[in-house]
């Protein structure tokens, strides 16, 4: 039997080979797409197998390659934490690769398929290498490979200025983040004790003993860098720009998986490198998580571009993951390993869950886009009749992300709630009091997410078609796309009803990272009962809730269909007034109007109504125009001043450029004189 690290290596090599060979595949035109994406699917499956094995047996394997720079060859390491993220990347990679077979066909003839395949493979390989890397240099190489490949994928439809702008913004923020991560590694290596290049291996960083100040500097630099990648508020602005313009299979990977690599980074830095930290680090992570969760979902509610809305939901869910991580760090700082394990498992579980349902939702959005060529929700409606497969699968995603049982989003949020309710165990009176308030914010997030997804599903799939083209021309998407979504939906359900298995499998990670275990208490009463701490404290049985609801529904249905009743289909009752038109339906903007009004102070909302009244009586307007502009306040607060400052500096520097050769010669002369004076 092959070792997990070998299988992971095979997976990466297969992807790299695919990237290199993609141009050669072009000669077998009809087979290029199925062949390439099948290979990507196989590679992803291999990553899943490697990850599952690595987590299950809790082993640590490492290898040193002959590549790299002198003195610092590439180090690889596969431990349970890396294995878990291999599974997250691999599973979504598998589903999205299957989905892509038909999705990418849609670009055939218009755009370079080779380019797509090449960067797709590099992107997946980059993400796998990020979690496998075991030294700072290799980590950053992989990190940049991932960033660059995804940049080119965001730019895939590059004829529109909007897309180029979004991709540039993404690249900018990604690099600000990468710089911070580089600095964090620098601090760890220089203050860690080991000299030279040796300090840059992760092993040296694990062994390093930093003073508390340097440790904080390293952690928060890294946290800033990873937060920029993850889209933590206020570094989230690139997400709602880049995700909508990328092809949908890429958005599914970026949002579902790529953001998770930063969760990996934060876990690695906090629990693996630094290990001992004060509680306020966790407090900051928790607070940022809460802000991201609530603000993310509120911004999402205000959107009517389907993919942009989903992108804001990624901000929300990253927030929820950070809430779990923050709680875990707080518990770990107070030497409560079992509670830290609970919160860490909640965070990791949500990481996996979010990858699954967000991937599913982005694939669903891609299917809708594929079928209707429309991203604006206000132009959709009634698609449940036209897309009989996509609709129920998308609904599974909606229910999962809204944290409703028996699907997976619920389990991880429930675990997070349980972690919140353990705050009385903390020896700090103020924290005891403040932490449960965070639970209320999480509840608000969950409820707003439910409202948002009622809006999404209701406006896109229910009601009547609002668009201009004829709805008869909309057709269900192809089989490979359906299978990709179906697999993701099934995973959502399984992760929701079998949490004890997942937690039992995950148990090696909290054991290695914070010294606590969860599975023993969580699975004490068999696989059906999830009892995270003790059965008197809380219990949940996913299988029984699922089967119970199904059974009652089935029995009721059968009892009521014993006697034949007539079901007559009639036109909608229009109260006897003019015939109802699709334009009279509630729109996405109308749906979120009460929430916009209640919580509107958090946004920059500008509403304008222009009415041209009738000459006879003002009650009969001739025309009415409604304009609504909602802006992210962080643009005005944070980014515009920076942009303005950069332009201002550039203009001042620009004054030096006179365009006359004499002036430039004078500059050289003065510079020489100054250098001679100072250096001589």
């Amino acid at each position, binding site marked *: 039997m092959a070792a997990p690290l070998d299988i992971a290596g095979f997976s990466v090599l297969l992807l790299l080979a695919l990237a290199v060979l993609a141009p050669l595949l072009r000669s077998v035109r009809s087979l290029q797409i199925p062949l390439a994406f099948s290979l990507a699917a196989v590679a992803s499956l291999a990553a899943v197998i490697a990850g599952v094995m690595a987590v299950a047996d809790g082993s640590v394997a490492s290898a040193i390659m002959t590549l790299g720079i002198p003195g610092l060859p590439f180090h690889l390491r596969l431990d349970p934490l890396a294995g878990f993220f291999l599974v997250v990347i691999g599973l979504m990679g598998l589903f999205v690769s299957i989905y892509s077979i038909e999705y990418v066909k849609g670009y055939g003839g218009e755009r370079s398929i080779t380019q797509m395949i090449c960067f797709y493979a590099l992107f997946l390989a980059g993400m796998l290498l990020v979690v496998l890397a075991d030294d700072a240099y290799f980590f950053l190489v992989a990190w940049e490979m991932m960033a660059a490949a995804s940049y080119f994928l965001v730019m895939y439809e590059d004829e529109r200025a909007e897309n180029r702008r979004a991709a540039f913004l993404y690249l900018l923020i990604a690099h600000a983040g990468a710089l911070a991560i580089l600095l964090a590694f620098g601090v760890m290596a220089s203050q860690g004790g080991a000299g030279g290049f040796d300090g840059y291996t992760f092993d040296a960083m694990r062994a390093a003993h930093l003073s508390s100040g340097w440790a904080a500097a390293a952690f928060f630099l890294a946290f800033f860098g990873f937060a920029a990648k993850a889209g933590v508020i206020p570094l989230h602005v690139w997400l709602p720009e880049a995700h909508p313009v990328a092809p949908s299979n890429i958005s599914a990977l970026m949002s579902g998986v790529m953001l998770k690599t930063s969760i990996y980074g934060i876990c690695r830095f906090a629990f693996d490198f630094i290990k001992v930290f004060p509680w306020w680090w966790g407090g900051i992570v928790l607070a940022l998580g809460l802000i991201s969760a609530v603000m993310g979902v509120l911004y999402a509610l205000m959107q009517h571009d389907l993919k942009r809305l989903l992108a804001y939901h990624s901000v929300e869910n990253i927030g929820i993951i950070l809430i779990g991580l923050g709680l875990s760090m707080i518990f770990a700082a107070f030497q409560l390993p079992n509670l830290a394990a609970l919160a860490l498992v909640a965070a990791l579980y949500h990481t996996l869950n979010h990858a699954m349902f967000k991937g599913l939702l982005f694939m669903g959005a891609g299917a809708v886009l594929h079928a209707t060529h429309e991203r604006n929700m206000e132009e959709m409606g009634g698609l*449940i009749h036209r897309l009989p497969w996509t609709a129920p699968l998308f609904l599974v995603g909606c229910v999962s992300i809204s*944290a409703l*049982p028996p699907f997976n989003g*619920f389990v991880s949020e*429930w675990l997070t*709630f*349980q972690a919140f*309710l353990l705050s*009385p165990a903390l020896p700090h*009176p103020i924290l005891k*009091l403040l932490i*449960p308030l965070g*639970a*209320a*914010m999480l*509840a*608000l997030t*969950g*409820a*707003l997410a*439910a409202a948002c*997804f*009622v*809006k999404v*599903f*209701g*406006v896109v799939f*229910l*009601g009547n078609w609002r668009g201009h083209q004829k709805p008869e021309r909309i057709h269900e998407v192809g089989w490979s796309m359906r299978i990709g979504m179906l697999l993701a939906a099934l995973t959502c359900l399984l992760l929701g009803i079998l949490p004890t298995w997942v937690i039992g499998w995950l148990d090696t990670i909290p054991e290695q990272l914070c010294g606590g275990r969860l599975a023993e208490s969580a699975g004490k009463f068999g696989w059906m009962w999830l009892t995270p701490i003790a*059965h*008197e*404290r*809380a*219990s*949940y*049985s996913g299988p*029984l*809730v699922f089967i*119970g*609801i199904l*059974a*009652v*529904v089935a029995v*009721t249905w059968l009892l*009521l269909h014993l006697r034949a*009743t*007539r*079901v*007559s*289909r*009639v036109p*909608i*009752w229009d109260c006897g007034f003019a015939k109802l038109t699709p334009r009279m*339906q*509630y729109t996405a903007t*109308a*749906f979120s109007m*009460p*929430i916009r009004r*209640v919580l509107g102070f958090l946004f920059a909302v500008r509403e304008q109504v222009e009415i041209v009244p009738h000459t006879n009586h003002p009650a009969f307007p001739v025309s009415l125009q409604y304009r609504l502009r909602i802006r992210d306040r962080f643009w005005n607060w944070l980014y515009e001043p920076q942009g303005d400052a950069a332009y201002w500096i550039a203009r001042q520097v620009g004054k030096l450029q006179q365009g006359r050769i004499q002036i430039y010669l004078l500059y050289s002369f003065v510079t020489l004189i100054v250098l001679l004076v100072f250096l001589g």
Partner: protein
Amino acid sequence: MSLHPFAIELFQFMLLLGLAPAFAGWVKVLKCRVQGRSAPGVLQPYRDIRRLFGKDIVLAENASWLFRFTPYLTFGVTTIAAGIIPLISVDLPLSAIADVIALVMLFGIVRFFTALAGMDIGTAFGGMGSSREMTIASLAEPAMLMAIFTVSLASNSTSLTQMVSVMAHTQFVIRPSLAFALAAFILIALAETGRIPVDNPATHLELTMIHEAMILEYSGRHLALIEWAGMMKLTLFFALGIASFCPWGIAAGGDLGSLALALASLVVKLMVGALVMVLIETGLAKMRIFRLPEYLGSAFLLATLGMIAFFILE
């Protein structure tokens, strides 16, 4: 003689399925009496449900499978919820399948799908009802969980049987944290079950409907299931309040004598609880929808005060 736990569970299902319409009828009778009208009788909801089950279904042309599936799901989820809250005995085997957080989320499923069904036909009423319902729910849910968390912190558990038995075995003392939490819970329960001052269950006036607007297009057995589930939800919220705040009298096991006593005390508590709700409903007018954030905000504030009181005073 004592009953097997599963017999108790079965009895509780029967009790809630069977008694929920009578409870709804009782509320209606009380309300009519208090407002000086003549009452239709406690059994009227049974007659309504039977009549609806007998009727044919009239379905809008564009209704999808989701619209037809929602009544069954609503009924199924509410029935499952009925097996979770301990009513007459804490020895309830199915109670462990969901704790109180999961219970709140189960009601969330009902709301989610009802709101979707409201948007399925594509009339403005349905969308309006869904939009308002989800807005109110998103503001009510944090307050609801805060109120419940206060009780959970006091009993160190979110499992309902554990919360009930801890509460039932402690001496009755007025604890400020629980008093605040109860006040918050009452405000939220009125909102969640769609009663005045948040929603008016008796209205079909366009501008004031919330819940009724979502189910306006239903007829026949679909409507019967939704109405029945609605009555059960009302009863369950009372049961949740009783279980969390005054479970005294509940049986500890399956002893027949104590079960009978528990049943009697439950009926008395429900009847008194209904009177309190009717007095609140009669004394207040329905609020404008944009006044509701203040109402729900004060509920949240009360729940938070309860939690602070718990940490500071207890």
